[in-house]
C-alpha cells in the first residue's frame, strides 16, 4: 500500500477510522447529542474529500476503483449517512439509545457502502457487502426494548447469511471458470464459446440470487416488510436508500462489464424485474401499515431500476442511476418525516396519520409531496426518473417491462395517497402533537428541496451521471 493509494482511500479511511475513534470516545452516550454531530461532521468531511481530492491512482489493490463513479457514490452515501445522523438525534434521546455506538455503526455502514459502490473485483464486492451488512445487522436490532426490532434483526440476519453463502459460492464458480476475480476478466468466461461457460453461468446465477436478496427483488423479498417494520425509522431510511443503492451500483458495474448479456441471463433478470413490479404493487395495495407499504414500494422501485439496467446500454444505465439517486433522496426524506413524527411509538398504522395536516401542516405537506414523488407525479424527481427509465426501455426494445412499469406506477398512486388522505381528510384524535426538532426540519426541507429541484431542472444531474456511468 503506497502513499498515493492511501490518499485515494482517504474518504473511506475518514469514515472507518473516525467510526473507530468515535466508538472509543463516546461510550455511555445515552441522551447526548455530540456523537451525532461529530459523526455527521466526519461523514460530511468524507464526502468533501471524495469530491475535492483528486486521486492519483485508478484503483487500489486491484479491488476498488477510485474513479469518478466510485467517488460520486462515496460522496452520496456519506451525505445520506450524515443526513440520517443529523435527523435521528431526538429519536435516539426519546428512546434512551446510545448515540455513540449508533453514529459509529452508521459510519461503518457508510464506509462499507462506499467500498461496495467502488468495487471492481468479486472479492472486493464480497468484502464490502459483508462490511456494511454487519453494521446493519446491529442497527436494525438497535432498540433492544422493542421486540419487533429483535425479530427484524434476526429476519435480516438469516437471509443475509444465505445471500453471503450464495455470493461466495457464485464467486468461487466464476473464479473456477475464468481464473480471475477481476471484473472484466472474471465475466469473460460467460461469453459464448468460452471453456466452462456452463460453470460460469451457474456462478452468475448464484451471484444474481445474492444480489436479488439484497435488493429484495421478488421472489427474494420476504424479509423486507418485517425488517422495515421492526427497524428504527432512521435506520430503515438508510437501509432503503444507501444499502440498496450500493448493491445496485455494484450490480451496474457487473453488468457494464458484460458487452452482451449471456443468453439465459437477460430473461432471468427481466423475470425478476417483472415479478418485482407486479407482486410488489399488489402486496403494497393490501397494507395498512405505512412502513410495510414502503417496503413493498421499495420492491417495486428496485424493479424499475432493474428495468433501466436491462436496457443494456449507456442510456439505460444512466437512467437507472438517476432514478436511484432520486429514489434515495425521496426515501431519506420520507423516513426523516416518519422519524420526526415518532413519539414513544413510531406512527406505523394508517390511523396514526389521522388529522396530522392540521397539527403539523409543514411536515404533512412535505410527506405528501415526497409520497407523490415516489408515485412519480410531476414536478418531482420521481417523475423525471420514471420518464428516463421508461423511455430508455422503450428505445431499447423492452415494451413489456415499460408498460408493466407504467401500469404499476399508476396503481401505486392509490396506496401512496392513503396516508395523505388520512392526514388531510379525517379529524384528528385528541393526542398531543409531537414537536419537530430544527435538525429534523432541516433534513426534511433539504430532501424536499432536492426532490423538487431535480424534478424541475434535472439536466445538470443527468449530465453528471451520464459522464460517470461506465
Amino acid at each position, binding site marked *: *500500500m503506497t502513499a498515493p493509494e492511501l490518499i485515494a482511500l482517504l474518504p473511506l479511511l475518514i469514515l472507518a477510522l473516525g467510526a473507530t475513534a468515535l466508538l472509543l470516545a463516546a461510550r455511555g452516550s445515552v441522551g447526548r447529542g455530540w456523537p451525532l454531530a461529530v459523526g455527521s461532521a466526519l461523514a460530511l468531511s468524507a464526502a468533501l474529500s471524495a469530491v475535492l481530492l483528486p486521486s492519483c491512482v485508478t484503483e487500489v489493490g486491484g479491488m476498488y476503483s477510485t474513479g469518478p463513479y466510485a467517488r460520486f457514490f462515496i460522496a452520496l452515501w456519506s451525505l445520506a449517512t450524515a443526513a440520517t445522523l443529523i435527523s435521528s438525534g431526538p429519536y435516539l434521546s426519546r428512546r434512551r439509545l446510545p448515540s455513540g455506538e449508533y453514529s459509529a455503526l452508521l459510519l461503518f455502514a457508510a464506509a462499507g457502502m462506499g467500498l461496495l459502490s467502488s468495487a471492481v473485483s468479486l472479492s472486493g464486492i464480497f468484502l464490502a457487502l459483508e462490511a456494511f451488512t454487519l453494521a446493519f445487522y446491529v442497527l436494525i436490532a438497535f432498540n433492544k426494548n422493542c421486540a419487533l426490532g429483535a425479530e427484524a434483526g434476526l429476519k435480516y440476519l438469516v437471509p443475509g447469511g444465505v445471500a453471503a453463502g450464495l455470493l461466495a459460492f457464485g464467486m468461487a464458480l466464476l473464479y473456477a471458470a475464468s481464473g480471475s476475480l477481476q471484473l472484466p476478466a472474471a465475466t469473460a468466461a460467460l461469453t459464448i464459446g468460452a471453456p466452462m461457460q456452463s460453470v460460469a453461468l451457474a456462478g452468475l446465477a448464484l451471484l444474481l440470487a445474492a444480489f436479488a436478496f439484497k435488493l429484495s427483488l421478488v421472489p427474494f423479498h420476504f424479509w423486507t416488510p418485517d425488517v422495515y417494520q421492526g427497524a428504527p425509522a432512521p435506520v430503515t431510511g438508510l437501509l432503503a436508500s444507501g444499502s440498496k443503492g450500493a448493491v445496485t451500483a455494484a450490480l451496474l458495474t457487473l453488468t457494464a462489464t458484460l458487452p452482451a448479456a449471456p443468453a439465459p441471463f437477460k430473461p432471468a433478470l427481466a423475470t425478476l424485474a417483472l415479478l418485482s413490479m407486479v407482486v410488489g404493487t399488489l402486496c403494497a395495495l393490501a397494507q395498512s401499515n405505512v412502513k410495510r407499504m414502503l417496503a413493498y414500494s421499495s420492491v417495486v422501485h428496485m424493479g424499475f431500476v432493474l428495468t433501466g439496467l436491462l436496457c443494456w446500454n449507456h442510456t439505460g444505465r444512466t437512467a437507472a442511476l438517476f432514478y436511484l439517486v432520486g429514489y434515495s433522496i425521496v426515501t431519506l426524506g420520507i423516513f426523516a418525516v416518519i422519524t420526526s413524527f415518532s413519539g414513544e411509538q413510531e406512527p406505523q398504522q394508517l390511523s396514526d396519520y389521522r388529522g396530522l395536516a392540521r397539527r403539523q401542516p409543514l411536515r404533512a405537506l412535505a410527506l405528501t409531496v415526497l409520497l407523490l414523488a415516489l408515485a412519480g407525479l410531476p414536478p418531482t424527481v420521481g417523475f423525471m426518473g420514471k420518464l428516463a427509465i421508461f423511455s430508455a426501455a422503450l428505445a431499447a426494445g423492452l415494451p413489456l417491462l415499460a408498460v408493466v412499469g407504467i401500469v404499476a406506477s399508476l396503481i401505486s398512486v392509490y396506496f401512496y395517497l392513503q396516508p395523505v388522505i388520512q392526514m388531510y381528510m379525517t379529524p384528528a384524535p385528541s393526542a398531543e402533537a409531537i414537536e419537530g426538532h430544527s435538525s429534523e426540519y432541516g433534513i426534511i426541507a433539504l430532501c424536499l428541496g432536492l426532490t423538487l429541484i431535480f424534478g424541475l431542472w434535472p439536466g445538470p444531474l443527468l449530465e453528471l451521471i451520464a459522464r460517470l456511468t461506465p
Partner: protein
Amino acid sequence: MPLEALSISTAGAFGSELMPPAESLLSLGLYVAMAVGLIAFLLIACRLIGQKTHSKFKDQPYESGIDPTGPAQPGRPVPFYLVAIFFIVFDVEVVFISTWAVAYDLLGWSGFLQILFFIVILFLGLVYLWAEGALDWSPSRQRHSATKEGR
C-alpha cells in the same frame, strides 16, 4: 491459470469411466423406494386408523409426569454467547496473522504495516469491550454494569 493446471475438458463423455454399473444403481433405487415407501405407509396408516382424541391433558407437553410451569421461551442471560463471539473474533485474527507470517519476508514493510493496522483495529475493539464491561465475568459486576447503563 487454473484452467491449464486442472486441464478439465468439458467436451465429450466427461467422467463416464466413473459411472457405477447399472445393477448397483438399481439396487440403490430399490432401497430408496422401500425406505420412502415404508415411512409413507406408516404415516398414512397412522393417519387413517389411528385414534384422534384431543383433551386438555393429552395435548399438554410431557414434562416427566410433572405439570409444566412458566412460559416455554423465557429470557436467559447470554454470557456464554459473548465468550463464543470473542473467541471467534480473535480466532479469525490468528488466521489472518498466520497467513501473513507465512509470507512475511515476501510482503516486506508494506505487509507488516498492513497487518499492524489490522491488529491495532482489533485491539481497539478489545479495548472497547473491556471498557464496556464485557469482560467482567462475575454475576454481581454484570448486574452492576447493566444497571449503570440503564438497560
